[in-house]
């Protein structure tokens, strides 16, 4: 145990890298979720088909395969990404495909009458989504997005395989240098668990806050 404590600086560094990777890919994933998810409602067939191809491609292949593809194959095609960037893009694009389905499902779950009301009020498409559909759909998305965020955190561990020095990578370093096995892996599992639990807490807080705000607006409306 003492031996592992000597390595606490690199564990802290690994924790920071893992959190950075999670936050950065979460932002990428969130943007992709909305862009791809809302593209599914486009009036242009080409846009809808492109969104479906994106979805099936990233949901149908394994995240680790995508990561290795970006890390090893893209440089051969002339696209050079740093390991961290490849990790962020792979994690973000992968989770974005799952997220896009959440966005699509949530928007579809808004009652049909709301769509019709927006059309009846002569809202533009932008206004319809901005003022009618999304405010009702976003609270529905939050819990599932919370689950996806945990999946994303876990996915970042895979990035250690493309030489990103995150927590899992650091645990491997400790294992190789000290020949200890139980301690490094147990410690990083606890760290992952703590980070995940914090994320769960944050998402719950946001969900509560949004639902609270919604109740107030409903009361005002009445």
């Amino acid at each position, binding site marked *: 145990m003492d031996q592992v404590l000597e390595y606490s600086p690199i564990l802290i560094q690994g924790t920071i890298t893992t959190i950075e990777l999670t936050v950065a890919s979460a932002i990428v994933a969130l943007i992709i979720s909305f862009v791809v998810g809302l593209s599914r409602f486009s009036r242009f067939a080409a846009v809808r088909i492109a969104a479906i191809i994106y979805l099936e491609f990233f949901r149908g292949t394994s995240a680790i395969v995508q990561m290795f*593809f970006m890390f090893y194959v893209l440089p051969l*095609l002339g696209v050079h990404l740093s390991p961290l960037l490849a990790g962020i893009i792979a994690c973000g694009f992968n989770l974005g495909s799952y997220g896009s389905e959440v966005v699509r499902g949530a928007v579809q779950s808004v009652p049909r009458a709301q769509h019709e009301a927006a059309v009846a009020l002569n809202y533009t498409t932008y206004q319809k989504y901005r003022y009618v559909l999304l405010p009702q759909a976003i609270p529905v998305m939050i819990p599932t997005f919370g689950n996806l965020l945990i999946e994303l955190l876990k996915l970042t561990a895979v990035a*250690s*395989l493309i030489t990103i020095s995150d927590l899992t990578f650091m645990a491997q370093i400790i294992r190789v240098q000290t020949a200890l096995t139980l301690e490094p892996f147990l410690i990083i599992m606890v760290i992952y668990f703590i980070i995940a639990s914090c994320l769960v807490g944050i998402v719950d807080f946001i969900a509560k806050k949004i639902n609270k705000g919604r109740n107030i607006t409903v009361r005002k409306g009445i």
Partner: protein
Amino acid sequence: MEWNWQVVHDVLPQMLQGLVITIEATFIGALLAYVLGLALAILRMSKSRVISLSIYWTSEFIRRTPLLVQLYFLFYVLPDLGVFLSPLAAGILGLGLHFSTYTSEVFRAGIENVPQGQWEASKSLNYSRYQTMRYVILPQAIPPMIPPLANYLITMFKETPLLSAITVVELFNAANIYSNSHYKYLEPMTLVGVFFLIVSVPSAYFAMWLEKKYQRRSSRMP
């Protein structure tokens, strides 16, 4: 970067051998996940708070930590504790254990969705707890569980490349070994992606079809 069919010809036999391992790991892992998941779901509904809470937090711990780290844990730590497993066995155990915490939620939701009256009826017929589960609850609970369980089968299939990290030569690792020794990344990595797409996209549509099928059946019930 030119696509080289000779490379495809060379790597394909090894990849097909890897595919067999992938399929083996997926199905045995899934079987383990289903059996363990059902056990976890039943234990979680135990009347004893100690049992149900400890099952809850154990599942949460497994669910909030990365599968990759759990695989490392099984692969590196178990031999130190005197348990020697082949890499494939450790991988299957890891997959099964990790996903049993997900399938247990499916089982629990399925069981809880059986109307309360069914429990009461079995009680009034003086059924034992085993008989209630075996003859009344599970036959009604299982059909709606099939689509989500099928989805987890697909998810597990996509997670099998992680087993390459603990030296299992499955589909992805077979390609990766070839890539590293011949320094040809484009063809093997692309092929892996194509293999995954070929299997998982049709299966995903099949799962969607199952979902529709069982939805219709349940909505016909009063």
